[in-house]
């Protein structure tokens, strides 16, 4: 008798956990399946898009900054595009898993990927299965300028102090990854100023900033958004935006300090597979652009320290291709590419 009861309870627990654990997967799975039977027929009658759920694929794990962006875009985009939008996390392979997934889906606009600056450097590396040319660019969403961090009690009060010091001794600058956009802009800064920095790769920009704050590292190249949560605890010497950033007006830009070539942005945007009809790209763009006018979106942009990075498809593509040329040049100079 007794053991029977227990078996029931156990079965219940098992079932419950399956439900709980399956929620995430199930949710994504459901929305994936209807896409399989898709035919290119719909593309011909260009007017009707979208007629079924859209999936936003992201290469980062739930809760990561780009995932947060994707989920909010999905939520607000549902209202403007009129179909359910789900987020699918395809984590791994430095983002290539998510891009590979995109390439296996039909070029019908129902699979949209999030991407960021790294696409032009990572996808040019040896052994990468795709290049940035295998995608169409839908809309650029956010920008996060690069920023050079030193400790708050550092002797370097200005960029000038910093570069002068770099002439007489080896200065170590840390930041995310090797061959990353952060690595590239640091290299470019050194070249323009006639100095050479030693690049120390970290697992994240935050890690590098922590090391700067703890006095283990001379400087860190990260993004200005990280400053929003560390104001007063760390000093930013310069930011790579065209104009000063709203929430940190005290930080000068590289441009006004005499380095206009360093005006560039870490960006995030949405891309689709190459071959997706122009009309569909335009509809996606219109929908997400409208979503970005929602007050909830504005509030999120403010709290995350991000800047509005809106660019329409053609301009977005242009910017990416230009960036790719520079990255290729620099990566070769740095010896990371042949």
């Amino acid at each position, binding site marked *: 008798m007794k*053991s029977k009861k*227990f078996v029931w*309870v*156990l079965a219940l627990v*098992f079932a419950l*956990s399956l439900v*709980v*654990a*399956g*929620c*995430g*997967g199930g949710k*994504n799975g459901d929305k994936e399946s209807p896409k399989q039977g898709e035919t290119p027929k719909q593309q011909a009658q260009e007017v009707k898009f979208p007629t079924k759920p859209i999936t936003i694929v992201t290469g980062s*794990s*739930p*809760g*990561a*900054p780009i995932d*947060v962006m994707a*989920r909010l875009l999905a*939520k607000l985009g549902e209202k403007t595009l009129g179909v359910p939008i789900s*987020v*699918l*996390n*395809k984590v*791994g*392979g*430095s983002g*290539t*898993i998510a891009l*590979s997934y995109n390439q296996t889906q039909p070029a019908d606009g129902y699979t949209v990927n999030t991407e960021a600056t790294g696409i032009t450097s990572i996808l040019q*590396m040896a*052994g990468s*299965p795709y290049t940035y040319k295998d995608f169409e660019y839908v809309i650029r969403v956010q920008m996060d300028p690069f920023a050079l961090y030193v400790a708050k009690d550092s002797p370097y009060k200005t960029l000038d102090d910093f570069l002068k010091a770099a002439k007489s001794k080896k200065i*170590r600058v840390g930041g995310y*990854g*090797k*061959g990353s956009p952060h690595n590239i802009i640091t290299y470019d800064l050194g070249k323009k100023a006639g100095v050479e920095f030693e690049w*120390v*790769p970290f*697992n994240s920009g*935050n*890690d590098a900033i*922590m090391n700067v*704050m*703890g*006095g*283990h*590292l001379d400087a860190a190249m990260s993004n200005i958004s990280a400053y*929003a*949560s560390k*104001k*007063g*605890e760390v000093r930013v010497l310069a930011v790579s935006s065209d104009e000063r950033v709203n929430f940190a007006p005290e930080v000068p830009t590289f441009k006004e300090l005499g380095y206009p070539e360093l005006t560039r942005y870490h960006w995030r945007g949405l891309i689709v597979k190459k071959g997706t009809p122009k009309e569909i790209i335009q509809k996606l763009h219109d929908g997400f652009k409208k979503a970005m006018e929602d007050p909830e979106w504005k509030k*999120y942009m*403010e*709290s*995350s*320290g991000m800047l509005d990075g809106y660019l329409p498809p053609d301009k977005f593509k242009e910017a990416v291709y230009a960036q790719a040329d520079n990255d290729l040049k620099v990566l070769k100079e740095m010896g*990371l590419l042949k």
Partner: protein
Amino acid sequence: MELLQNLLQGLEITFTWQGILAVAAGVFIGILFGLTPGLDATSGVALMLPFTYPMPATIALLFLGGLYCAASYAGSITAICLGVPGTPAAAATALDGYPLMKKGRAGEALFVSLYSSVIGGLISTVFLVLLMGPLVKMALSFGPAEYFSLALFGLTVIASLVGRQFIKGFIVAVLGLLISTVGMDAYTSYPRFTFGIPELFEGISFVPAMVGLFAVSEALVNLEKLGAGRVVSAVANRIPGWKEIKKLHGIILINSFIGSFLGALPGVGAATACWVSYNQAQRMSKHPEKFGTGILEGVAAPESSNNATVSTALAPLLALGVPGSATAAVLLGALIMHGLQPGPELFKKAPDVVYALLASLFVANIIMGILGYFGIRLWTSFLKLPIGVLTALIFGFAFLGAFGVRYTLIDVIIMLAFGFLGYILRKFEFPLPPLVLALVLGFMVEDNFRRALMISNNGALIFVTKPLSLVFLILAILSLFAPYIQTQWAIRKARREGKTVEEALEEVSRMFSD
């Protein structure tokens, strides 16, 4: 005083019916996640995150905070009952928890694990509330050199885990270190041992590997004795008396401190803390030889420590927006999603949310204690199932856990591969814990070693000229030679008692034979 007032206000928010419901639901779901091998606090919070978006920010955080606490505890339940750690943080708990269960003392082990977790969680929360500033300062004092020495110290724990199986233990540990080198090399951007599989660029995923090593290999071993009926003949639900619990208070207290301290470091988590604590308890014990044979100290130490990492992991997150653990990183996403930017300004802009979160951590630990207490009878009843059913359940959960985190098949393949590896190692009586420890710490050792050398211009002195780093190096050396020193002492003592060398050696070997 102001702090107290703020906390009371936070408690007020927690003690609304929505607040309590959110915390309790978080705790309940957290226990289910923790129980499932492969699913842990990080994947639990990540999977539940999308469901909290429609909730108000405070309620969402109370829910996720409760989930984080409970999932960090519940991994010990399967570690004790099945010898299969439900989370990486509970791997050390299985060392004594499982033998305790085999002795029919599952109820005691489960109660001690729960009790230690609750105390650890509460102490850590006190640390977080009172010492957030100093904790963050301490975290900042850890650079690459310090992390390297700390990780090295962590690796020396292997010496105490292997006992007499010295050679076998080190073979397995080196195998683990080797496996931890798989993946993209961050310093040259060159993929190592990935065989062109992009899924392996980020290395062998740790959680599926651990699920394979413990859960799948355990299930495979079980398959051999399907006819044997049940795992154990008698299961006692007995709960230890106050006298027995009181004896553990010293261990629980020390390891709650160790856990709180390690939790605040962004580079170290519960999976490391549990080993360091297990090692500490064994080193300081009057009867180190009994560790691993099924004693309550061996459960209390890692369990108080791994739950103590939970609250303090939020210190750098709230103060600087830098998550102190993988789970805290997901919570950072939750904060941003709700329009909250962590950092010094959060305390001014949204004090209600911050203090509700802090207050709710106290409440979550207590609710966890209550729910967990009623759970004990349920967990021990698992053991009354026939082996066949139990094995099927383990297999089912293992697949679920391996696939559920990232939805990639490669993780399932990794799990199965490590399952067979674990089975073979078990068959030839190689100990598994050194492999897990090497997988946890291997990357940290290599990564920080190379980074420290880049910073010091390739001068190895950086590891001894930095005081904190030196301290951990000395600890590492002590820890490495401790078994040898203990043996020498035992021999000397035996001689003094007038025994011959042979008798003395025999006594020593008995000490380490279990």
